[in-house]
């Protein structure tokens, strides 16, 4: 396919985005920020999927649009995850009066 931007750029972009997401999940203390970092990781995967779909060979045996379908499914699932995640964060906030994942530590061992 004649395209100006090579596939590897998309892949590098997605990998960098994914790394940013992982670093965010590990370092952030605020549960909402952790939630956002998880969303960044899912978006990185979506970039990969769409790029592979655009540049990949068309295979008849799985239908040519698997990547797009999967990306749409991921967006849907991500929305459901956020809805659930915000609910859980609010529940924890009410119990502790704090938005800090390090303080939610009533269980250990």
């Amino acid at each position, binding site marked *: 396919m004649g395209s100006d931007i090579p596939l590897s750029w998309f892949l590098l972009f997605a990998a960098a985005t994914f790394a940013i997401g992982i670093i965010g999940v590990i370092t952030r203390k605020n549960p909402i920020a952790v939630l956002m970092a998880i969303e960044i990781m899912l978006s990185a995967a979506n970039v990969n999927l769409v790029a592979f779909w655009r540049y990949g060979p068309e295979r008849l045996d799985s239908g040519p649009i698997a990547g797009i379908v999967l990306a749409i499914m991921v967006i849907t699932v991500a929305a459901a995850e956020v809805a659930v995640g915000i609910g859980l964060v609010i529940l924890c906030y009410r119990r502790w009066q704090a938005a800090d994942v390090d303080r939610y530590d009533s269980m250990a*061992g």
Partner: protein
Amino acid sequence: MPTVGPSTLDFRDFFFVAPEMLLAVWGLVVLLLDLWLARRLDPAARRLWVGRVALAGTGLAFAVALAVGLVPLMARAYPEDAGSWLSKSTLDYLFDTDPSLFSGTLAGDLQVGAFDLLYIVLLGLIVGLSRAWSFTEEWGEFLALLFWATVGMMLLSAAEELITLFVALETMTICLYLATALEKTRRRSAEAGLKYFIYGSVSSALFLFGLSYVYGLTGTTHLSAIRRLLVEAQQSGLTANAAGATAVLLILAGFGFKIAAVPFHQWAPDAYEGAPAPAAAWIATGSKIASLIAFMKVFANALEPWASPDSNVLRPGWIGIVAVVAAVTMTYGNLAALRQRNFKRMLAYSSIAHGGYLLVGVIAVGLAADVSRAAGAVLFYLVVYAFANLGAFAAAAWLARDKESDQIDDLNGLGRKQPLLAICITLLMLSLIGIPPLGGFFGKLYVFMEALDERTASRGSISLVWLVGLALLNSVVSAFYYVRVLRAMFLREPAGKPMAAADRLIALPILLSTAVVVGAGLTPDLLMGVMQAAAAPMLTTPIVVHKLTAPTPVGPPAPKKPTPAFQYSADQMKKMGQMATGGAGPPGGGGPAPKAKAGTKSATPKSKAQAPASKKAENRP
């Protein structure tokens, strides 16, 4: 097999997902009836009433799943009579050659049927357990979430395609996050829910990112097509790349979270301890079974070409990595369980350790010459493990109801107050250790024998002796913490408030689990036969039991229409040939390799009765 060209939707496929649809709709029914009719009742009556509605739903789903399983079997057994009670188009459909549902995204084989029934039975027991005491006020929500999680599990163990697999995985876990957090009176339930959510969704993202690389490398999401393309690519040397290695590691990390393997296990103890006992039981049993089946399907079917050490993508193959993870998982789980005083937390670490043993079984599946036997061993282990754990969580629910605590010390003196149930719990604990006459022993025996068997298999360069030795050592270590429960029940004086008698909601799961565990121990061949027959279609290309080309009762059926589904590599063909000539194969299977392949592939999933017989034939020296 993936369809070629524009896929068409066959509405008759819905027949095979009827149990899933029923459970999904019944979740809504429970939710709405709870809001509409039950809100005026007082909390305890509301709990019992909504619970009864939910139990009716599981009963109905059981009947439907049984019918879905039996109708094809009956039609196949009596093809002449079937015309009188089935319409022509249904008959055509049942004997159709296209083996999978919804253009190859779901399997409808014996494994799916058997495990649907298992999930529904476990769900019924867990719904019953939820009725035993009031740990939340949102009964409609809690039970509906359990139902929808079950739908996710059933689809997850049926998925033959990565998009379906991902969506089913998320359906299951999102419902379980919420069910974990629904014990509103306790702070730690919310904490457990949030921790489970964060770890779980990070793992989903890792899994998805790995999946995107697999899609990029192969251009398809169907498991069997991925396998075929990887085999082809391996011959052209295309798989020696970093993307493949990254994909394997990321997918492994994603599944590792779901089955709580060690570098990714941190959520499990907190989630089990904080969740209400029925939700914890569902995480420990149903979610683990479904994740492991999906794990086997992805790794031992789709990524099988990357399994072995001689693949050139990852030097040790994924088997080497999984072996290290398994070793660390079982050792860490057992050592950490030793210092637990909390019963549910102890069960969490014990379930991590059992995840390690199960990974040994998955390695055996990846290496095995006879995939159905090795996968059957893993499924056997899963069933026995699930029931033993369910019984243990019923005991935890009993503790939570009467003592509002999870400490092992609160079981003190139970042996004198409730001798029958205490003996049942003893049997469950002994089965989890793996004491000989019980089901847990045979689960471990089969899995470890399969792992050891691989030394003689064709890919001899990995020796699993060290892994099995470590697993045996770990089983000994595990005895110490399980025995602590027995010591509390039988050797200590009861202290504090005595536990009230268990009503049938708590007694039934314990008794039934004990019956299954003891039964599996007394007649392991029976369960193993079913599990092998179930495993046979699972890890090959979807060759489906209930849709044979023609009802031929004896002899290897004629090869199906020339199938482009996937090609075996040369050494696999050789292996199949050896297997067929080794005694268990169909008569005349010693011919050229392609013929042997057709024979073994279609003969193994034939019937429940055949599998034990062929196993005996193999065991005979």
